[in-house]
């Protein structure tokens, strides 16, 4: 038995309404590459953030090379030897590569002067040691770096003296295949030096290629701990998925003939050649990994982001939506994923949040009486059973589920023909979730066309009439409800072709 450099013992972590990690135990040995895989929200990021000291665990213990670091601060975790290579490194644009690598830890001389000569020497040695000296100029400014070079900076930061465990979070998302090969060379070198390596990735081929062991997470629990040599991509996907469907909820298909939204060949900064259509009474589910471009697509359709090419047809008319105001006039509603930043105004009242999008419609000559607002949104708020003492309550004082209901109430009151829902049950507790599902179902039954982006498989499978999968800005052909399985969707989202 190898000695373990990282020991995770019965770790648990909860956020309001969610148990992000439950009783998780695992170990990483010296010279071992352990891959963590799982769907969005399976708990990988939460685990990394606990290890890096960004989050504090609720239960359990983390032991790093014999030292307990369960409640370490980010700095203490670093100093103890845990280093996280982040997916999107923070690079300071106007200082050099050398300074970027040692930012916060400059070697110093008397009177607090930075020892630039010593800094350059250390960085040069570090780059040479790990074979990146030819890839990057240590005097180049941060802003001039390519994504791959930024990654090198981030990796070098991690490999400064004292390192015991390095965790790579989606390290290859911005790399070309040559660069991936170099990264793998590096990882093998680190392995040979006896470091523990944690490798978090959605790309199963890479996981198969580089890891010794795979740990599969699902809904915050471990569902598999497999030797890579003895397993297959198919088996891993099976362990990642296979969740119970939402109990007691069954949606009847209510799709009508009328096409509400037709998108043909749409392109934008994030998208290439996107085509799909949604009929009245239909719920079209959008699956995909975080960052695949689903939220951006919603915002392009809603006029918040620019469409570069392609045609959008609404109710048979070619539409030219350039702003959210245009979209609302065209009878589109959009409940964004990021409620607090984009949906709510925490210091304003429930009634204002709910009525905001229909002010112009409610008013006569620009005059808007509280009474008119109450008539328009009061019944909706009551129908959604929003738990609030009064309509004039500040929305910031409500719970997450009730806040989400208020955002939904806005669009119910507006009565759009097309409703775009981005992660409609994010950070909503279980009870409120079921109510929101029933609501979405009823809206579709009443003839609304619904575009639903969700990273929660059970939700997608239970609610959607058809599902499309987005990956790197492209959209798959729609999967009919009958054929939609988690395996098929995950395979399309990962692009692994494993189970398709």
């Amino acid at each position, binding site marked *: 038995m190898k000695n373990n450099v990282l020991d995770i013992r019965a770790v648990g972590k909860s956020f*309001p*309404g969610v148990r992000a990690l439950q009783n998780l135990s695992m170990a990483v040995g010296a010279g071992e590459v352990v891959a963590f895989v799982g769907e969005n929200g399976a708990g990988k990021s939460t685990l990394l953030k606990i290890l890096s000291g960004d989050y504090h665990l609720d239960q359990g213990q983390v032991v790093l090379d014999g030292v307990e670091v369960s409640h370490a601060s980010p700095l203490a975790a670093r100093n103890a030897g845990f280093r996280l290579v982040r997916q999107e490194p923070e690079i300071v644009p106007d200082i050099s590569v050398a300074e970027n690598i040692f930012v916060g830890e400059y070697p110093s001389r008397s009177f607090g002067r930075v020892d630039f000569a010593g800094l350059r020497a250390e960085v040069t040695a570090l780059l040479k040691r790990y074979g990146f000296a030819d890839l990057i100029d240590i005097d180049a400014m941060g802003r001039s770096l390519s994504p791959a070079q930024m990654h090198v900076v981030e990796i070098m930061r991690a490999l400064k003296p004292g390192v015991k465990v390095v965790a790579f979070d989606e390290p290859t998302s911005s790399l070309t295949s040559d660069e991936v090969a170099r990264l793998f060379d590096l990882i093998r070198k680190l392995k040979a030096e006896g470091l523990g390596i944690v490798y978090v990735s959605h790309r199963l081929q890479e996981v198969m290629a580089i890891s010794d062991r795979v740990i599969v997470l699902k809904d915050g629990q471990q569902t598999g701990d497999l030797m890579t040599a003895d397993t297959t991509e198919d088996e891993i996907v099976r362990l990642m998925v296979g969740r119970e469907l939402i109990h007691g909820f069954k949606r009847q298909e209510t799709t009508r003939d009328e096409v509400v939204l037709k998108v043909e060949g749409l392109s934008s900064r994030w998208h290439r050649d996107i085509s799909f259509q949604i009929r009245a009474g239909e719920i079209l589910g959008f699956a995909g990994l975080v960052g695949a471009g689903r939220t951006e697509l919603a915002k392009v359709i*809603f006029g*918040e982001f620019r469409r570069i090419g392609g045609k959008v047809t609404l109710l048979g008319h070619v539409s030219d939506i350039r*702003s*959210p*105001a245009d*979209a*609302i*006039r065209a009878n589109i509603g*959009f409940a*964004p994923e990021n409620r607090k*930043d*984009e*949906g*709510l*105004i*925490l*210091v*304003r009242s429930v*009634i*204002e949040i709910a009525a*905001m*999008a229909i*002010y*112009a419609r409610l*008013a006569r000559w*620009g*005059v*808007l*009486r*509280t*009474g*008119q607002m*109450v*008539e328009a949104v*009061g019944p909706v*708020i*009551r129908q959604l059973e929003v*738990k*609030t*003492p*009064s*309509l*004039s309550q*500040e929305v*910031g*004082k*409500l*719970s*997450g*589920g*009730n806040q989400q209901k208020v955002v939904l109430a*806005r669009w119910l009151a507006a009565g759009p023909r097309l409703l775009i829902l981005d992660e409609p049950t994010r950070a909503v507790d279980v009870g409120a979730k079921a109510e929101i599902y029933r609501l979405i179902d009823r809206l579709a039954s009443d003839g609304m066309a619904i575009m639903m982006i969700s990273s929660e498989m059970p939700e997608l499978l239970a609610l959607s009439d058809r599902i499309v999968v987005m990956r790197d800005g492209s959209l798959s052909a729609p999967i009919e409800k009958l054929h939609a399985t988690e395996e098929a969707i995950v395979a399309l989202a990962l692009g692994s072709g494993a189970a398709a």
Partner: protein
Amino acid sequence: MTAGDLNLTNRSPESALSRLTRFVGAENLSLIIALIFLVLAVSSQTEFLFSSRNLFNIGQNMAVVGLIAVGMTLVIVSNGLDISVGSIAGCASVVCALIVTGSGSVPGGLAGGIAIGAVLGLVNALIINYLRVNAVVATLATMSAFRGIAFLIAPEGRPVGVLDPTFALLGSGRFLQMGSFPGVPIAFAILVGVAIVGYFVMSSTVFGRSIYSMGGNPAAARLAGINLNRMRLWIYAISGALSGLAGVIVTARTSSGQPASGTQGLELEAITAVFLGGALLAGGKGTIVGTMLAVLLLAVLSNGMNLLGIPTFYQLVAKGLLLVLAVAIGQWRMAMAEKRQAKLTASGAH
């Protein structure tokens, strides 16, 4: 429909007192209490405070700052700031004096002053919207530029004398004068009229409601269909127009178009009033009622300090401290509210 319908649960009918509290706003009660204390403190030192002539003066002094503060309320609630209001008033003062002396038309002068204010306000909004300069920096820049323009349009940079007696009424006229009662200053009546319109706009129009939305969360307001740029054009134009009107009143009171004197430092007083009136630095909160109470409080404070013979220099220090205090109270309130929310979330309550 009354405000009582906001309650989802059935409660007993509201008492007259709680209705009044709702109109004034709970947070404004502290202002009223502060005002009462201030009045007691000053009147314990001098009897002159309540003399009808002094009350008349307070009313007249309130008008200029008050008009600007109404516009500033819109600006600050929308999460902006307008530091150029004093300079706009200076420009308007000179412009209206030139029109009145040139054409002899009082309405022309009044309209001209308001119009130049609105135009300069639009300039502010254009800079903020399309050059993407933040509001503080943009209006700091125009504060200097507009003041310069005021001196440039005044012949030789000197005040422009206005001898029209009808025009002077705008500044020092009064009505309802009876016996020893000195009457109500016309300028004060204008302020009351503007404040009532302002109250109505902020509470009962799409425009006013949208100001609250955009101030509280611009991203959310955009996604709810509010055109932020267009809103800003109107908000700063209104702030400018009201500053212009304030400039006209300064002209009428001093019988001369003043490029600088009488309009300097108005931005500080107006901004202080708005924050003291309950507006938040982060935007999205603030009311005309609160602002007006704060303007009254500031006017009484300033008057009281004069009556007690406190030197101007100390008054300047006091004004500065008051602005810090006003904003700090708002920030502290926000922090308390966040703490309460955090506790609520932690306990998992609905």
